[in-house]
């Protein structure tokens, strides 16, 4: 990795890491009495490890100019490895918290392992760790191919990738120490948020630099989706995390917003995080890897453009459907509900476009588990967006809100759509990146597919049942006009579904472990020697002696 950097880039890396070490040490000394200091130590250790890595390769020969004839794929390769590691970790913690709901004593009497701390470790691990690394890895791959241009330099993409993972580690370790802003999906404290701003702006600038260097004049639709993901996440992250720290060497901060404004800002962020982190970027993946794997162009390029702008403009207004029947003004709730319903059009535009692309190639879908991952992802995308629009209707929401139905809906999207399209894309991408003929074990891909699909179905069906029973129990009145069931009655009724859900999650986790093993074995496979190697090469060696 270091050998691929030019001398200037190696020096640049050392400067960045030295600054980071100093910042970490200052944090550690100033905040020694606070978890802030522990995070400072962590930053310093990570930066020092980076310095050792750079020094160990510092005197390697510089890369030749021949690199400009190749795409730069090292960050994508590392990103895939990190994504799979986060997937296994995040799914493991997720399954642990699932079992906690059925067996609450499984915290082993420790503070760090309580539900309230483990749950954000799970959500951050899967959304930002797994999803984020997969998005960064695939965006570098797709952007270069569709722009027909190499990344502008070698250092920036590595900075984005490793800097982003430092953010994830600080976030997750913070939760275990009890640090949180108490904003769902935006839990990390102020200094971790500031670090992500630095990383994310660098990512945006890198993307725009590559776009400016593109050799292909038309910007392929997948790039638009990736760009929307980067731009909007930057905007959401900055606004929602505006906060005042209680001091510059303590972790605690207070949000700039309060009351219903805070709730509205949080759900404007939260729903658009679903839209632009968990949808837009993954649609970018789908619009590139699905046609590529199927060997067929996208069914309707026009529809993909209309869907893109539809999603971009409608999603922005939908967040208030998370706050039905709250102190939020009624008209703002209605606005969110209306836009959520309109969202069905662009969402089904994309889901339909994907399925119609496969129409006529169903034989390949049957035989190829990788393509089947993508097909099932498109089906779940269509199902979940329909369900989401439906649940945003105020009267439906009165039944579904605060129940497990919401959890079922989120996981139909996260497992069925996001994770499936990611696994499909990774299985397509790994042999291309490492120049292998295929995955090490196609049978293991098949096993992963059925574990993932089975796990998702068990999970989602359990939560649908549980959620609707829960919602009905909370609104059933007896003849004397009081509630027929106590809250504890509804908790007892949930128990079998919680066990089923944890089993579904376990199946999904096992699938991810099988997938990680298969990817590892594929990377370790010896590269095939091209049949015509030797005979059909330019005679460079002869010229060198002249």
């Amino acid at each position, binding site marked *: 990795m270091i050998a691929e950097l030019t001398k200037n880039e190696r020096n640049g890396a050392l400067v960045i890491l030295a600054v980071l070490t100093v910042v970490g040490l200052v944090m550690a000394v100033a905040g020694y009495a606070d978890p802030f200091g522990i995070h400072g130590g962590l930053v310093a250790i990570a930066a020092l490890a980076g310095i050792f890595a750079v020094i160990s390769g510092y005197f390697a020969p510089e890369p030749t100019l021949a690199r*400009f*004839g*190749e*795409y730069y794929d090292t960050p994508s390769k590392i990103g895939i490895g990190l994504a799979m590691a986060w997937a296994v970790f995040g799914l493991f913690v997720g399954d642990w918290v699932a079992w906690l709901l059925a067996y609450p004593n499984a915290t082993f009497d420790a503070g760090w392992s309580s539900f309230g701390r483990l749950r954000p470790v799970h959500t951050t691990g899967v959304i930002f760790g797994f999803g984020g690394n997969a998005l960064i890895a695939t965006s570098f791959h797709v952007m*270069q*191919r*569709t722009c*027909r*241009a*190499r990344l502008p330099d070698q250092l920036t993409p590595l900075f984005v990738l490793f800097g982003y993972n430092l953010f994830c580690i600080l976030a997750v370790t913070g939760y275990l120490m009890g640090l949180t802003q108490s904003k769902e999906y935006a839990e990390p404290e102020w200094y971790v948020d500031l670090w992500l701003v630095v990383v994310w702006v660098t990512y945006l600038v890198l993307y725009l630099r590559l776009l400016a260097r593109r*050799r*292909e004049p*038309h910007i*392929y*639709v997948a790039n638009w989706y990736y760009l929307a993901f980067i731009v909007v996440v930057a905007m959401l992250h900055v606004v929602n995390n505006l906060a005042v720290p209680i001091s510059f060497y303590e972790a605690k901060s207070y949000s700039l917003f309060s009351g219903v404004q805070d709730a509205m800002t949080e759900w404007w962020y939260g729903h658009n995080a679903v839209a632009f982190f968990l949808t837009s970027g993954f649609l970018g993946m789908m619009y*590139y890897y699905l*046609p*590529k794997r199927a*060997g*067929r*162009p*996208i069914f309707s*390029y*026009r*529809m993909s*453009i*209309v869907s893109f*702008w*539809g999603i971009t*403009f409608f999603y922005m207004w939908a967040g208030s459907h998370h706050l039905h029947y709250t102190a939020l*003004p009624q*008209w703002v709730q209605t*606005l969110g509900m209306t836009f959520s319903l309109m969202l069905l059009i662009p969402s089904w535009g994309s889901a339909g476009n994907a399925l119609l692309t496969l129409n006529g190639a169903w034989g390949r879908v049957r035989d190829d588990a990788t393509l089947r991952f993508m097909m099932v992802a498109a089906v779940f995308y269509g199902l979940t967006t329909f369900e989401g629009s439906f649940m945003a209707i105020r009267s439906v929401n009165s039944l579904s809100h605060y129940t497990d139905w919401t959890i079922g809906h989120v996981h139909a999207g996260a497992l069925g759509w996001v994770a499936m399209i990611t696994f499909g894309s990774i299985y397509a991408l790994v042999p*291309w990146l490492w120049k292998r003929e295929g995955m090490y074990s196609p049978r293991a891909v098949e096993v992963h597919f059925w574990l993932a699909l089975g796990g998702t179905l068990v999970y989602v069906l359990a939560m649908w049942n549980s959620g609707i029973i829960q919602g009905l129990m909370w609104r059933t009145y007896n003849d004397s006009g009081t509630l027929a069931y106590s809250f504890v009655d509804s908790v007892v009724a949930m128990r079998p579904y919680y066990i089923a859900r944890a089993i579904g999650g376990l199946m999904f986790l096992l699938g991810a472990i099988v997938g990680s093993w298969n990817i590892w074995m594929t990377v370790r496979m010896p590269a095939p020697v091209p049949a015509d190697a030797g005979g059909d090469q330019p005679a460079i060696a002869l010229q060198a002696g002249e």
Partner: protein
Amino acid sequence: MDIAHGTLVWLAKSFGLFYLIGLSLIVVIYACWPSNRQKFDRAATAILEEEDRPWQ
């Protein structure tokens, strides 16, 4: 800065409405413009090419 509820509703129902209708029209016209067809068809098929090197 005190924005009354009525002002916001008026803004949403007037400017907001036409802004979104206008945007939708622009997008649909752009996507369906006949001379763009060739460009879109080429973009859709270009990613399928096997070539895996940047253009110099």
